[in-house]
């Protein structure tokens, strides 16, 4: 696994929390939202997403609730808990610090690197 792949895998929980921060979503919605927001850069297989969601739930960072979907299978909606919001805020700052320092060390800025 390359270093970039490792970073992407390591950021799974953070990405899920950030997608769930605005409103409750079910697994499929989270997957599409991630893809949309990152313009296809962050794609996640269901095999990675669902165990990660259950892990976050076990850690108390998200809660879930089944909701009926008339004529179809029920959907399981996930919501970020206050503990999850706190962890997300803290990790956003840490990521920002990490990226700022990385770009500073590399001698470029995040915007320049995008260009």
């Amino acid at each position, binding site marked *: 696994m390359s270093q970039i792949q490792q970073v992407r895998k390591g950021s799974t929980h953070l990405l899920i929390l950030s997608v769930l921060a605005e409103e409750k979503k079910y697994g499929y919605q989270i997957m599409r939202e991630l893809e949309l927001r990152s313009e296809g850069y962050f794609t996640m297989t269901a*095999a990675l997403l*669902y165990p990660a969601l259950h*892990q976050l739930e076990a850690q108390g960072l998200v809660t879930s609730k089944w909701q009926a979907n008339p004529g179809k299978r029920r959907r399981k909606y996930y919501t970020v808990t206050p503990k999850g919001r706190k962890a997300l805020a803290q990790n956003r700052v840490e990521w920002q610090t990490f990226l700022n320092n990385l770009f500073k060390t590399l001698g470029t800025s995040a915007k320049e690197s995008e260009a």
Partner: protein
Amino acid sequence: MTLDDYLQVLSKKLNGFPPADRALLLEEIGSHIESGEEDPKLGIDRGQRRERLMSELGSPGQMAKGFRTVYQPGGLIDYLLIVIPYLLNQPINLLLVSLMTRHPWADARLVVLFHLCLLAVGFARRSPLLTLFWLADLAVQLMGVLWYSGVYYGPLQTTCGCILLVGLIFLLGRTTWQHRQDPLVVSFGLQPFFMGTLSIGLAIVHLHATSPFLPFELILLQLNEHFAGFLYFGVVVALAPFFLVKNRDIRWGAWGIYWVFAGFYRNWLDYQITYPGYVYYVWALFPLLVVIMGWIFDGGRRRVSMVSP
């Protein structure tokens, strides 16, 4: 593989999960597939959507493995497969002692065979915790048998015992290495082996030691003597949250308490054979210190996994 096949394979791969939990996991993945089949963004027709969905699911094995790391199915059975033999250990030893006078074969070799059976169960259940527990326990037992009674069993049996011991240590190392990403499993595998080996080492070094205990140590050891039964069963109780709870902090706490009970209980045994006083501290404090370090390392690792590779 079709999507229906996928759910069937996933259901098989989730064996060991309670049926109700398995049904809920399958329902959630089924709902995911249903949502994808209805999503026009995935393709113009059902065939295209199904193809895209399949490529996005990941393998059923990978998904089941992910769920296993969260739920640890079969934790209760693993716990019972450790606790019941532990509780039977003393009656079995007494039985063997009574049998040995008439049947010379009823000795430590039977205990080793019994442990081998438990180890086989661990491998059959593909349970790393069960396997590691009995691997470490058997390796330490065998080491003790070879050291104290190697001459008694003669060169052939001693050589076989040594080969078995090397094999067990290899398997212990390999199983631990396979789970190196989980410090809790690593600690569960290596710590009992290390402490057992240390115990035999100390016994060798202090073979003819007298008992130079300080008054404070004597008071604590006498307290241990009074509470030996409590400590013996305390070990069993402390292991329960380790196997049955999902929260890692609670599991680390249970593992630490296990070592406090095991350490103090061990000290009571050591007191009977008069080791010097410092052994007391090694047994009571060193394992707890290692567990606390492991817990801090694991906590840092979990936090880092959210912010960096």
